[in-house]
C-alpha cells in the first residue's frame, strides 16, 4: 500500500516537469512515460490490494506524516484561495472571492479550533479502486490522445496562443488530485482534492483566454465553489457535532444535514440541474479536457461521493431530493440535447443526462440501484470519453464539429465514423451495458415504489433515443460530397481511440464477468450484502441479444455481399443531374442536395426548456435543503 503516495505524487511530478518542458517532441515523450507509469502504478495498487484479499482497507493512520500532509493541504488551500482571488480581481468577478475565501477560512478554522478524533485518512476498496483504474487508464490514454490533438488543434486554431505545456501540466495535476480524491477517507483531505479539481477545471476551461472562455470558466468556478461551500459546512458540522470527519462516519451516523450537504456538493460537481450550465460552458475547452474532466472522471467524482453516501440516502428526505434531481436532469438534459447541432454540446447534454440517471440510482440507495449506478459509471466513462475524442478528431479534420457537416462521414472519414458508431451504439442500443443498466434501474425504481422516476426514465429513454439515432443516421448516410477531406488525426489519437473502442466492445462481451467480479463486490462492500441482480434468465436473454447484434449484421453482410445488384440513382423526382449529389432546380440550374437533421428547436430548445428546468430543480433543492436543515435544528 506504499504505492498510494507514489500514485498521487507521480502525476503531480509529471505536471511540474511538463510545465517546464517547452519542446513538443520531448513533451510527447514525457507524456507517454508519465501515462505509462501511472497505469503501471495503478496496476501495482490493484495487485497489492487484491493480494491483500480485495477487502476494504483503511490506511494512513494518524502519524507525523499525516500531520505534515494536513499542514501541506492547509497551505495548499490558501494557495488555491489566493489564486482564485487574484484571478477574480483581474477579471472583475468579485462575488467568486466571497465564496472561495468563505469556505477556505471555514475549513481552516474548523481544522485549527475544532478537535476531531484522529483516525485513518485513506481507504482502498472496490469502488475507489475502480475509480483509480478509470482515472489511470481512461485518463492516461486521453493524455496520450492529447499529444496528437494539441498539435492539430494549434495548426487549426492559429488565433490562440499555444499554451500546451500548461495544458498537459494541468491534465496531470488533475489526475493526481483525482487519485487523492477517490482514495481519501478523511473529509478534509477529500475537500482539498475536491477544490484542486474545481480549480484545474476552471483553468482548463479558460485555456483559450477568449471572453467566452473566461466567462464560462468563472461560471464553472462559482458553481463548483458553491458545492465546495456545502462540503465545507458539512465538515464543520461533522467536526462540531460528532467530532469525526471520516466519510464512513457520516454514512454510519446517518446525520441528515451533512449527508444532504455533501450530496448537494456532489450535485454541483456532477453538473446536475440547476448547475448544468457550467458543463455546457466547459465545452469551449480543448477536447481532451472535455473528455477527461467533463465526462470520464471529474464529474464522476460527484456520483462517486453519492454512491458512497447512498446507504445513508436510502429512504431519507435527502435521498428523495437527490433521486428527484437526478431523474429530472436525466429527462430535461436529454430533451435539450435534441435541439443541439454542435457535437460537443450533444455529448455534454448526454453526459449530464446519464449522470442524472446515475444520481437518481444513488439517491434511491438500494442494492439494485447502486449496482446499476456503478455499472453505468463504468460504461459511461469509457464510451463517452471515446466519443469526445472522436468528435475532437473529426473537428480537427473537418474544421467544424457541427453534426450537419458530418453528413456522409462514413465515406469521408471511415475510421473515425466507425469509432463514433461504436460509441453511440454503446450509449443506448441493446445489448450494450447502458441498456442493461437502464433495465435494472427501471426495475428497481418500481421496486422502490418511485413512480415519478419510472415516468422520467420512460420519457427520458425515448428522447435519448432520438438524439443518438439522428446523429448515427447522419453518419451512415452514404452521400458523396464534393469537398475532399483529409484525415488529420495523429497516431497518438488513434492509439487512444482504438483502445477505448476495444474496451467498449470487451465490456459488452465480458459483461457478466464485469457484473460478478467488479460490480457485485462493490455493492457488497457498501451494503454488507448483495444478492444476484441479474438472474440466469436475464443473462440468457442477454446472450441472445448479444449474438444477434454482433453476428446478425456480419452474417447478413456475408450473405448479401454476393448478391448481384443493379445500381441506380436515388429518387429525386427524376431531376437528378447525373448522380446523387445534384438536382435540377426550378431555374434549370444544378443545385447541391443538402439534407438536414431534425432539431425541433421550438419544442426542445435550450431557450424554451432551460429556464423552467432550472427553476423547478433549484426550487426543489432549496425547499428540501431547508426542510432537512430545519428538521435538524
Amino acid at each position, binding site marked *: 500500500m506504499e504505492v498510494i503516495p507514489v500514485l498521487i505524487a507521480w502525476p503531480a511530478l509529471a505536471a511540474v516537469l511538463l510545465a517546464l518542458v517547452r519542446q513538443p517532441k520531448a513533451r510527447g515523450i514525457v507524456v507517454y512515460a508519465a501515462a505509462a507509469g501511472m497505469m503501471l502504478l495503478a496496476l501495482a495498487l490493484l495487485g497489492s490490494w487484491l493480494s491483500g484479499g480485495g477487502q476494504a482497507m483503511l490506511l494512513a493512520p494518524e502519524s507525523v506524516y499525516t500531520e505534515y500532509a494536513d499542514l501541506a493541504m492547509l497551505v495548499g488551500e490558501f494557495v488555491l484561495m489566493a489564486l482564485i482571488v487574484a484571478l477574480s480581481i483581474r477579471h472583475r468577478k468579485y462575488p467568486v472571492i466571497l465564496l472561495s475565501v468563505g469556505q477556505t477560512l471555514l475549513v481552516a478554522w474548523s481544522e485549527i479550533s475544532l478537535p476531531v478524533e484522529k483516525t485513518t485518512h485513506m481507504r482502498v476498496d472496490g469502488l475507489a479502486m475502480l475509480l483509480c483504474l478509470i482515472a489511470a487508464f481512461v485518463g492516461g490514454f486521453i493524455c496520450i490522445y492529447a499529444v496528437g490533438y494539441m498539435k492539430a488543434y494549434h495548426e487549426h486554431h492559429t488565433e490562440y496562443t499555444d499554451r500546451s505545456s500548461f495544458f498537459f501540466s494541468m491534465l496531470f495535476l488533475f489526475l493526481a488530485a483525482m487519485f487523492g480524491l477517490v482514495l481519501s477517507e478523511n473529509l478534509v483531505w477529500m475537500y482539498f482534492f475536491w477544490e484542486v479539481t474545481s480549480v484545474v477545471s476552471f483553468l482548463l476551461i479558460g485555456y483559450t483566454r477568449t471572453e467566452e472562455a473566461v466567462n464560462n470558466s468563472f461560471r464553472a468556478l462559482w458553481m463548483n465553489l458553491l458545492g465546495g461551500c456545502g462540503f465545507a459546512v458539512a465538515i464543520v458540522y461533522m467536526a462540531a457535532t460528532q467530532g469525526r470527519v471520516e466519510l464512513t462516519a457520516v454514512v454510519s451516523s446517518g446525520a441528515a444535514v451533512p449527508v444532504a450537504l455533501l450530496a448537494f456538493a456532489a450535485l454541483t460537481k456532477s453538473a446536475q440541474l440547476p448547475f448544468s450550465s457550467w458543463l455546457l460552458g466547459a465545452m469551449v475547452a480543448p477536447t481532451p479536457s472535455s473528455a477527461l474532466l467533463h465526462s470520464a472522471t471529474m464529474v464522476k467524482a460527484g456520483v462517486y461521493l453519492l454512491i458512497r453516501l447512498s446507504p445513508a440516502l436510502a429512504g431519507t428526505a435527502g435521498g428523495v431530493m437527490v433521486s428527484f434531481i437526478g431523474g429530472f436532469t436525466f429527462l430535461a438534459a436529454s430533451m435539450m440535447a435534441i435541439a443541439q447541432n454542435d457535437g460537443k454540446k450533444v455529448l455534454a447534454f448526454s453526459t449530464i443526462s446519464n449522470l442524472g440517471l446515475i444520481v437518481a440510482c444513488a439517491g434511491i440507495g438500494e442494492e439494485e440501484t447502486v449496482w446499476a449506478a456503478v455499472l453505468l459509471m463504468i460504461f459511461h466513462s469509457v464510451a463517452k470519453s471515446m466519443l469526445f475524442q472522436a468528435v475532437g478528431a473529426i473537428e480537427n479534420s473537418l474544421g467544424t464539429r457541427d453534426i450537419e457537416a458530418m453528413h456522409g462521414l462514413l465515406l469521408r472519414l471511415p475510421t473515425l465514423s466507425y469509432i463514433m458508431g461504436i460509441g453511440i451504439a454503446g450509449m443506448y*442500443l441493446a445489448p450494450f451495458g447502458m441498456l442493461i443498466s437502464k433495465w435494472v434501474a427501471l426495475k428497481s425504481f418500481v421496486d422502490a415504489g418511485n413512480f415519478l422516476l419510472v415516468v422520467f426514465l420512460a420519457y427520458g429513454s425515448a428522447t435519448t433515443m432520438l438524439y443518438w439515432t439522428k446523429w448515427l443516421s447522419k453518419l451512415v448516410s452514404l452521400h458523396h460530397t464534393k469537398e475532399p477531406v483529409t484525415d488529420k488525426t495523429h497516431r497518438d489519437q488513434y492509439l487512444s481511440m482504438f483502445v477505448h473502442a476495444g474496451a467498449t466492445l470487451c465490456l459488452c462481451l465480458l459483461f457478466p464477468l464485469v457484473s460478478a467480479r467488479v460490480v457485485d463486490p462493490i455493492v457488497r462492500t457498501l451494503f454488507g450484502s448483495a444478492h444476484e441482480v441479474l438472474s440466469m434468465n436475464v443473462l440468457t*436473454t442477454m446472450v441472445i*441479444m448479444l449474438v444477434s447484434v454482433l453476428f446478425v449484421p456480419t452474417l447478413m453482410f456475408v450473405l448479401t455481399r454476393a448478391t448481384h445488384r443493379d445500381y441506380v440513382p436515388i429518387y429525386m423526382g427524376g431531376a437528378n443531374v447525373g448522380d446523387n449529389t445534384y438536382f435540377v432546380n426550378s431555374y434549370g440550374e444544378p443545385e447541391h442536395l443538402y439534407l438536414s437533421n431534425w432539431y425541433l428547436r421550438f419544442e426542445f430548445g435550450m431557450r424554451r426548456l432551460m429556464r423552467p428546468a432550472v427553476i423547478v430543480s433549484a426550487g426543489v433543492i432549496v425547499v428540501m435543503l431547508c426542510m432537512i436543515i430545519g428538521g435538524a435544528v
Partner: protein
Amino acid sequence: MQAIGVILYLVLAPVVGALLDGIDRKVSARMQGRQGPPLLQPFYDLGKLFTKQMLAVNSVQMLLNLSYLIFLAVAGSLLFAGEDLLMSLFMLSTADMFLVMGASSDSSPFSTLGAGREMIQIMAYEPMTLLLAVGFYLATGSFQAGDIVSQPVSAVVTMPGFLLGLLFIMNIKLRKSPFDLSTSHHAHQEIVKGLTTEMAGPTLAVMSIAEYYEMTMMLGLVGLFFVNSSPVSWPLAVLACLAAFFLETLWDNASARVKWRTVLDGCWVVTLLTGGLNGLILMLVR
C-alpha cells in the same frame, strides 16, 4: 414449450401478418364502398416482389433491412417464448434503429425525411412501451411474459388504462392514419413512400415481412392483457386481438394524417393519462 412458441411465431407470424393485411385491405375497401383486392393479395404482392430485379442505390440497404427483419423476429420470439417483456421491447426499438439507418443510408430527400419522421414516431411511442412493461410488472410481479400469462386473472382487469394506451400507440406501429408519417400504404403522399422510397423488389419484400412480424408481435402484446391460466382465455384473447385490429382499421379510415407535433403531443399525453395514471394507481394499491 418455449421452443414451440418461438417456432410457431417464426413460421406463422408472416402468414398471420399477411393475412391480417389482406383482411385490412378488404375491410378498408368495404368501408370506402369498394370491392377491394382479393384476401390473399399480400401474398401475391410478396411473390411478385421476390421475382423482381434487384435494384439498389447502395450496398448496405439490403443488409440493414435484413437486420431489421431479424431483430423484429428476435424481439417477437422473446415475447412468444415467454421471456422478459422489457428486453423484448428494448429489442423492438433496436430493430427500428436498423430501419431508420437503412433509410438514412439511401440519403435521398424522401427517405431521409421518412427516417426523420420515423425517429419522431419512435420517440412518441417508446414511453408507452416501457410503461407497459412496468405496468405488467406491477400487476403481476414479473417482467416474464410466461409468468404474466399464468396469472389466475387476466391483466386487463387491473390495467385497462395500459390497454387503451397500447391501442393508441399501436396505430404508429401498424403505420396507419392518423400516425402514418414516415411511410404509408397509400399513394399520393407528399414524401413519395418515405422510408421505403428506395426499396425495390426483394428489399421491399424483406421490409414487408418484417412489418408482418411486428404486427403479430403488437397483437401478441394485446393478447397478453387477456390470457390467463385458464385455457378459455386463449380464444378470448384471439378475439380481443381481432377486435383491436378492427378498431385500428376503423380509425385508419376515419381519420386523416396529422402533423408530427400532434403525434408527439398526443402520444405523450395519452401515455401519461392512461399508462401513467393506471401505473400510479397500481403502485399505490400494491
